[in-house]
């Protein structure tokens, strides 16, 4: 690399870092994304002089390259602009999987090329195998995460000994890696077997994890793809790929850990615990539940809401499923006209993606200063007139605070039960993701408003307007 290019790549690295920094604050986030995109554009043009076209194939390769970029651009743009806001997690999973697949292919092609011409240096084999392994795992894992978020086999699929099987696959891959590094460095059969095993491992790793834990999985796979890209950067000596991939890898790891901390579950429990499979948690659930379920009609609920001083709305995955974010905003506006102070309490892991609720409410034009984080709202929950829970379950279950035997004991929750009145909008009495009964539903100050969230909200809006 000549020094001009080196300077350009330093600038690119700075743009990526600034972009990520700006992405961490709501005021600057959009510019942050554009700055990172600008960095990418510069990196793209700076790489063009580095392309060494194979003699006799230059013309076809250029055509393939341009065609590939255009096809990818069209696919990416269609995906990005047609996806519904509620399906955002799937989209991120899909783009992430494509990146992982590309990283695995790049590493594999470099290996096969090296294997043809003779032996590959050990120092090259290591990052190659790493990028291939992590990239293909991220590829197949993201596909499963995508399907789970689309509602296909959402439940954790597991069987006794799955962790042992996964361990065996992992050991076999490590064995093959050792053989390729220290033995026959150019054995492409061993490499291809390893590739296939890595794809299977990605599937086997994500299948036992429940749909609601997909945020953590996607975040983890996102950081995996970053690391795979960094590995490829080592292989093809591209500094900007190393820096960009590493930044994504380490920030993604931190983000994953932050999410696990928000649920008070160690990452090992998320990945290997088969949480929410209903085993174990089932029996413990009924204990400690006292009181009766008290249904309420929309008219009465509307009265309670419009005469409250302060209303806190707790949205959950149910709101996303019902696509009810616009109705939620309308209700909040109507209540505002009645002089009610309305706030939204957002649990860090509500929905199927960190910040999922924020994105949906932002789409419905709820100003973000009306959205409160869990820690900000909890101290004042005693002074809330009505807490309206829309399709949230485990994140408001007081068992997390009170019942030591509960599987979610210790998870920080939004303390909805401390409000004067709690109205829970729910389709039925079915349990949430953790598969346990919610003690909140049986409290004396809780009323249940059964029905589809969208229909109930429309009834509430009409009733509030009339009052």
């Amino acid at each position: 690399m000549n020094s001009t290019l080196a300077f350009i790549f330093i600038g690119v690295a700075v743009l990526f870092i600034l972009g990520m920094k700006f992405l961490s604050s709501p005021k600057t986030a959009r510019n942050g994304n554009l700055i990172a995109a600008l960095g990418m554009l510069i990196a793209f043009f700076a790489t063009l002089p580095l392309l060494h076209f194979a003699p006799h194939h230059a013309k076809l390769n250029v055509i393939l390259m341009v065609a590939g970029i255009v096809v990818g651009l069209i696919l990416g743009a269609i995906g990005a602009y047609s996806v519904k806001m509620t399906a955002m997690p799937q989209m991120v999973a899909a783009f992430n999987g494509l990146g992982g697949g590309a990283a695995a292919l790049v590493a594999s092609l470099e290996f096969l090329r090296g294997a043809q011409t003779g032996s590959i240096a050990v120092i090259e084999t290591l990052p190659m195998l790493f990028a291939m392994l992590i990239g293909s795992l991220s590829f197949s894992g993201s596909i499963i995460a995508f399907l789970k978020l689309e509602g296909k086999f959402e439940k954790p699929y597991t069987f006794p000994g799955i962790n042992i099987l996964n361990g065996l696959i992992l050991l076999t891959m490590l064995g093959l890696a050792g053989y390729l590094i220290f033995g026959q460095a150019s054995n492409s059969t061993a490499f291809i077997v390893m590739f296939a095993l890595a794809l299977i491992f990605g599937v086997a790793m994500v299948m036992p994890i429940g749909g609601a834990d997909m945020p953590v999985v996607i975040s983890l796979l996102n950081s995996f793809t970053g690391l795979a890209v960094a590995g490829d950067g080592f292989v093809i000596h591209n500094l900007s790929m190393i820096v960009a991939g590493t930044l994504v890898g380490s920030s993604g790891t931190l983000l994953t850990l932050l999410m696990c901390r928000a649920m008070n579950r160690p990452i090992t429990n998320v990945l290997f615990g088969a949480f929410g499979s209903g085993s174990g948690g089932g029996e413990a659930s009924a204990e400690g539940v006292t009181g009766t379920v008290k249904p309420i009609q929309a008219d009465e609920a509307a009265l309670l809401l419009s005469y409250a001083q302060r209303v806190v709305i707790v949205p959950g995955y149910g709101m996303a499923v019902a696509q009810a974010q616009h109705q939620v905003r309308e209700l909040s506006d109507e209540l505002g006209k009645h002089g009610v102070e309305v706030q939204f309490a957002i649990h860090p892991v509500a929905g199927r993606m960190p910040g999922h609720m924020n994105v949906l409410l932002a789409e419905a034009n709820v100003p973000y200063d009306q959205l409160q984080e869990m820690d900000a709202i909890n101290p004042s929950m005693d002074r809330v007139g009505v807490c309206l829970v829309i399709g949230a379950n485990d994140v408001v279950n007081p068992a997390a605070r009170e019942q030591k035997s509960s599987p979610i004991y210790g998870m920080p929750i939004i303390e909805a039960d401390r409000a004067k009145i709690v109205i829970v909008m729910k389709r039925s009495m079915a349990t949430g993701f953790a598969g346990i009964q919610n003690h909140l539903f049986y409290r004396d100050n809780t009323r249940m408003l059964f029905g589809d969230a969208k229909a109930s909200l429309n009834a509430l809006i009409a009733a509030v307007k009339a009052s």
Partner: protein
Amino acid sequence: MSEQILILFIFVLAVFVGFEVISKVPSLLHTPLMSGTNGIHGIILLGGMLVLAKADNSLVQALGFVAVIFGSANVFGGFMVTDRMLQMFKKKK
């Protein structure tokens, strides 16, 4: 110092920068941040292009072509979808 050691040095520093730079992100922005970094690793497109350029048989050309499509969809889709999300975050007027 050899080039490999220097590169390793950069790698280690980048790990810490990655940790540091997002340590104070509010959960409000978790999704856009994940999606934005998702766009950044789309830089793998460049890797795909470098490999495809060198391709001298049809197998490598075909797989390199797929890698370029994947990388291109990742980088364009990642940044576009993030921008679409972020343009909805507005303060009260």
